[in-house]
């Protein structure tokens, strides 16, 4: 017998050793897979851990000194709150608030928030993670007593309905993601409007019309290569073409939407949407091609047999059959665009936007950009709102992906 069998030296004699190796490696493979799952858990744990927790807050002015009688601030009427506001901020600041929105129209809670923000001026000294808040309550109280005698301890949930509907602000305690979410939705809408027809058109062309000649082969190879280009390169393309070269169009000045043409700026939602459209185009094409390819040929032949033209066949028979697949691919591409950050930073997202974007020609910020800018700040409380914003983003993405899976399941059932 060959002493060096294909499975190593003296493969017949060392059977126990070979089985041991098989067992060890099986464990290694299993552990690696578990490591992947653990990382996912760690990621989610890490985010949730920062979304809730105790804060030590010091206010500039002691609430008791606000001359509101014995009534605590929380129980004051709207008029009393307005009076406090009037007494404690400058006249100019008060008039600006009045001009933004007259006090008669503001709700009591709104005025209360203004008092907290403008008069009390809370300052977050320390933040604690959720786990620390739950299990190290005593230590937290010791820190409070020893280092921050004037501070108050507050349990804060960073992700609240309020967080969703308040615009961006420079102070984390009062910041929200409203402008970022609206910016994201606008950008995605433009991306879909541009990328979906172009992508599906290209997929139809490549699958139904293209003959096997050199041009079409180049197109196909090119699309596959574009899918692997780093997203930041698309950002630079968007910066050079949409923001700079096509500035009159993307800033809206060509349509008379900018009062002074010299201030026209191409760093708009429109540019961002077009850039993301270029980015997801290859994905939509490749997924669309797969969906169209899966349509059985007999369908086409039946249509031709009845005398349908090529386009009639495609429009009435191939596309309806391929639509669920195409939509699934598109949704996945959209969720990619929704999470994309780097190209939009390059295209020029604005850092602080407190007003809702009003249309495609507004300056923009999006949810991932907000997360990036908040994470990049060294202060702890910015990390907390970044974590809350991440949860909002992940929920949006999860909803998108779930709808893609539902579509796919419906589609596969229909084939059977």
């Amino acid at each position: 017998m060959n002493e060096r069998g294909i499975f190593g030296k003296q493969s017949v004699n060392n059977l126990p050793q070979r089985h041991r190796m098989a067992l060890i490696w099986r464990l290694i493979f299993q552990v690696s897979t578990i490591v992947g799952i653990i990382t996912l858990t760690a990621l989610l744990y890490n985010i949730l851990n920062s979304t809730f927790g105790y804060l030590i807050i010091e206010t500039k002015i002691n609430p008791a000194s606000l001359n509101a009688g014995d009534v605590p601030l929380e129980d004051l009427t709207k008029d009393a709150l307005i009076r406090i506001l009037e007494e404690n901020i400058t006249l100019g600041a008060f008039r600006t608030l009045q001009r933004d929105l007259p006090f008669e129209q503001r709700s009591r809670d709104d005025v209360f928030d203004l008092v907290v923000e403008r008069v009390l001026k809370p300052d977050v000294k320390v933040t604690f993670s959720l786990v620390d808040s739950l299990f190290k309550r005593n230590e937290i109280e010791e820190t409070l007593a020893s280092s921050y005698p004037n501070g108050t301890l507050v349990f804060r949930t960073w992700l609240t309905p309020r967080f969703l509907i308040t615009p961006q602000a420079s102070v984390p305690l009062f910041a929200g993601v409203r402008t970022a979410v609206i910016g994201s939705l606008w950008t995605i809408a433009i991306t879909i409007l541009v990328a979906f027809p172009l992508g599906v058109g290209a997929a139809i062309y490549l699958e139904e019309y293209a003959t096997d000649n050199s041009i079409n082969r180049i197109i196909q190879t090119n699309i596959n290569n574009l899918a692997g280009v780093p997203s930041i390169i698309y950002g630079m393309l968007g910066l050079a073409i949409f923001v700079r070269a096509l500035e009159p169009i993307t800033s809206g000045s060509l349509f008379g939407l900018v009062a002074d043409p010299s201030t026209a700026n191409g760093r708009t939602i429109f540019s961002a949407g077009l850039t993301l459209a270029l980015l997801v185009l290859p994905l939509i094409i490749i997924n669309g091609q797969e969906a169209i390819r899966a349509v059985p040929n007999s369908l086409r032949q039946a249509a031709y047999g009845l005398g349908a033209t090529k386009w009639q066949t495609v429009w009435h028979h191939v596309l309806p059959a391929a639509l669920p697949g195409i939509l699934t691919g598109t949704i996945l591409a959209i969720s990619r665009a929704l999470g994309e950050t780097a190209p939009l930073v390059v295209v020029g997202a604005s850092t602080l936007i407190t007003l809702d974007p009003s249309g495609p020609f507004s300056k923009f910020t999006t949810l991932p950009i907000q997360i990036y800018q908040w994470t990049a700040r060294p202060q702890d409380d910015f990390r907390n709102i970044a974590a809350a914003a991440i949860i909002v983003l992940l929920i949006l993405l999860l909803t998108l992906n779930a709808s893609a899976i539902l579509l796919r399941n419906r589609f596969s059932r229909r084939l059977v």
Partner: protein
Amino acid sequence: MNSSNSIDKTIYAQRLKRKPRIDEAIIQGFLFFCGTFSILTTIGIVYELGKEAMLFFADPQVDLVEFFTGTQWQPQLYNFGVLPLVNATLITTFFAMLIAIPLGLSVAIYLSEYATSRARNLLKPTLEVLAGIPTVVYGYFALTFMTPLLRSIFGRDIVQIYNTASAGLVMGILILPLISSMSEDALSAVPRSLREAAYSVGATKLEVAVRIVVPAALSGIAAAIIVGISRAIGETMIVALAAGAGPAFTFNPFKAAETMTGHIVRISGGDLSYGSIDYNSIFAIGLLLFFITLSLNIISQQIVRRFREVYE
């Protein structure tokens, strides 16, 4: 009677003749335009990056040789050596691969050779979730989880707040699902008969997996790894958040260093005036990045095409 019959015949003959259909031609034209649009994108990328990069290299203070060999990148002092940026990119990519290749391959082998179909149906979607998380979230993870972890293991004096190791390791987690799913496809494509032949001569499960299936799927695995490397080189948000701001030529993975992508993001994130040397320089870096990732992707496609074992 006879004459009307012949008229009918000519009408039928005309109908049977291929009619020029203008609407069909317009539609086909539009579809062809959609198809060629991707070529326009590529031309746009090469042209725009090339044009701005040309302006950069045409600057009298920039030297092409210095660009590729210089170890200092200080635009204020007109030192444009790209090596610090490339070096940081290589370090983060190395750490990413240190995680992604062994783990990704193990996961692929486990899923394709060992896992029951129930386990696979549970694990694959979970890994897909991992792949679908936006990179900026991984950046947050690197900064708030991995860096503190490294600092508590190796000491705060050794590990800086921003460092390439942390960014690289988290990037490895990001790329793991990519490598594992591409490799698993390659492994699953190996025909059953090969495995059964090996079992019949007395191989253990491990020997079948490692000596029969993996070599048979090697081209697909190699392609997956190269695509993973290309992805790591082009990855931006993790390094922008966790690797540090400011080019530094260092081989120490626990020190801050800016990668090519990180530099592009930081420079373009500020208020950048068109036509300045800063503006042009990021296009030169971008062009370099584009060609590196493009060649890696082409190599990967060639490997699949050239070395794929076709069975049956």
